[in-house]
């Protein structure tokens, strides 16, 4: 009995936190997604799966879903590739490398809202780049005013703001690569490329998985940079799922519908993250076999 109480006293606080921070919000979201709650009414009506049916008919939500997936797919690849590339460049122990590591990580320290406003001042129609172009007699580039350009600009800024984390993770991973193996490869006459492909990269496999999953999950929830950089525009072309959830919930007083979108996003995010993790685990097993 005493042992049980001791166990409970140790597990209890963590369990309560887990329930409060995770189980209750998720449970409430699922419950609200089955109602017509507008955010104010005392008695939201239970409407079953109507919000989910409406979601499948909403051209706006479907478009936001595709935009989010595109951002997540392209962004994840770029974050991982750039993260690894720069990590290799600044891997050595020197003062210059230490300086560059700080510079590379610095954008991630800034608030995404600040980053968005900063880049809108650079890429906007009257921004720094276009100001310089027009002063040279060139035409304005539609970084934020054309749907395709705006999406590309958004992905580029997301990558700029986020890849510092990937660099740090890869740098940590690079410290774990066996020096003996690298030395053995060098003695065997392996080129730098061969050493990287056959020794370094396989050793980094778990870090690659962590990077991919973290980047994917983060990008699937992209919100604040959309608010400050493009405002979801032009013409709603850069609205992400998270942006639309907030918009529908609070601007359109449709928290029930917003909750349904949240639940779907949560399921898709979990599904994609698990799929990536499993695929990577399989690849790792294949590499070590």
């Amino acid at each position: 009995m005493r042992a049980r109480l001791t166990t409970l006293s140790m597990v209890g606080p963590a369990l309560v936190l887990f329930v409060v921070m995770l189980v209750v919000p998720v449970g409430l979201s699922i419950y609200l997604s089955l109602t017509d709650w507008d955010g104010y009414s005392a008695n939201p009506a239970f409407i079953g799966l109507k919000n989910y049916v409406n979601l499948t008919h909403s051209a706006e939500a479907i478009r936001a879903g595709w935009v989010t997936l595109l951002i997540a797919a392209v962004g994840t690849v770029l974050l991982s590739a750039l993260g690894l590339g720069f990590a290799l460049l600044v891997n050595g122990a020197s003062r210059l490398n230490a300086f560059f590591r700080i510079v590379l990580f610095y954008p991630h320290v800034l608030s995404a809202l600040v980053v968005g406003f900063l880049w809108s001042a650079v890429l906007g129609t009257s921004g720094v780049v276009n100001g310089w172009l027009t002063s040279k007699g060139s035409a304005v580039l539609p970084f934020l005013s054309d749907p395709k350009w705006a999406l590309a600009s958004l992905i580029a800024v997301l990558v700029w703001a986020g890849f510092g984390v990937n660099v740090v993770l890869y740098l940590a991973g690079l410290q774990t690569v066996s020096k003996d193996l690298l030395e053995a490869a060098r003695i065997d006459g392996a080129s730098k490329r061969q050493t990287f492909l056959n020794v370094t990269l396989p050793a980094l496999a778990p870090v690659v998985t962590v990077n991919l999953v973290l980047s994917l999950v983060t990008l699937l929830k992209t919100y604040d940079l959309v608010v400050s950089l493009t405002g979801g525009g032009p013409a709603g072309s850069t609205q992400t799922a998270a942006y639309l959830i907030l918009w529908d919930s609070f601007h359109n007083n449709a928290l029930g519908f917003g909750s349904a979108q949240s639940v779907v996003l949560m399921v898709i995010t979990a599904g994609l993250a698990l799929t990536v993790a499993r695929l990577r685990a399989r690849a790792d097993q294949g590499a070590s076999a």
Partner: protein
Amino acid sequence: MARSVRLKAGRQFGLLTSAALLLVSAAGCGGGFSDNKGAAGGSTGEVRMLVNITPNLTKSYWEGLVKPFEDANPGVDVKIEAPSGSGVKDTLPQLLAAGNAPDVVETLMADKVLAPQMLDLTNEAWTKDTPLVDQAKLDGKVYTVGVGQQAQSLVFYNKDAFAKAGISAPPKDLDELTADMGKLKAAGYLPLQTAGDYVTGLQLLQLADPSIATKYPDWFQQVNSKQVKLGDTLLPLLERYQSWIKSGYIDKNALGLKDVGAQTNFFSGKAGMYIMGSWLVRTADDAKPKFDLGVFAAPVEKGQPSPGPQGVTMAAPYMVLKSTKQRDLAVKLVQFLVTDKTAVQSQLSQDGNFRKGYTEKLSPLGKQVQDILDQAPKGVAQGEGYGANTLPSGFNGEWNKAVQSLYTGKSAKDVATRMDSWLGSKS
């Protein structure tokens, strides 16, 4: 044995989880889903007011504004609360859901969704003379009272550019406006400055108010009851706007600008006109542009009486929440904010708003706006509207995206159809 231990442990975990879940759910949902009736409260205590915070309306400004009220009512503390979300609109539901609603809320206006949470102020005699109180009534009841009004359908213009383009007087109808745009372009100016973000759709709504209100005096009711198609009523203006984009009267890259960037462009003298609400007066007075800045009422369609009705919205609207435990003090505070001369004047000046009888401190540009308001045959609601004149929630956002799609290849007809389809989905 091991299975039995696992089952036992599982049961304990389940029980513990359920208990915690119940406990937390009970606490968490205590406010949001209950129908709190509130209480009159005493003559002292704390009154919480959720307000909009902007560069003009800072927290210290609000605290200074209510200080005389606190001084006149010893023992009363007015606590100014800034939105924890991106604005009052998304903060209030969060506070209600948490059972932590403020006593007074500023910025929002009652609609069918909000009204059940708000105190009915119909029997308060002091509300009768507040601006737009009748227009903001919902089912004949007063929930929202305001400090002043904002004129919406205004076109600010560069008088020097007009003179250089050979335009002797501001246009009275939209045909004249289009012709003037051609002259401004020929004189080397961007005829109409616009921006992305919320500005694109807002400007077109502001421009549309006089002509639509003249052609359809009960536009909101007719659109809601499907007597007229929403898209049909907006189509002529959409076609005109599209022709302006094609003619280069509006910069096709304007969507890459935010409102501040557009204002900067306009105040720098590059553009001939900028459509915006009366709050621009305060910004313009501060910006002190080098050209002679004027303002005229948004033109009507050819053949309609000019000036047409003016789009107006309530400035600094206040509501008292039904759930307040300090009902008497909260009502007294709102009465002070919308009727006390000093408090009213302060709020009008601080955010560039207007009210009859408060013209002494207006700048020359402000006086022009007051004249436009005085000369308008009537004030009309705009966009999602307020009171009895309301469109479904979300209209403004949908309209903005739809108008922006004119820049990205959609036709005016496509936009009109999109708006009809959106309204249909809200039925």
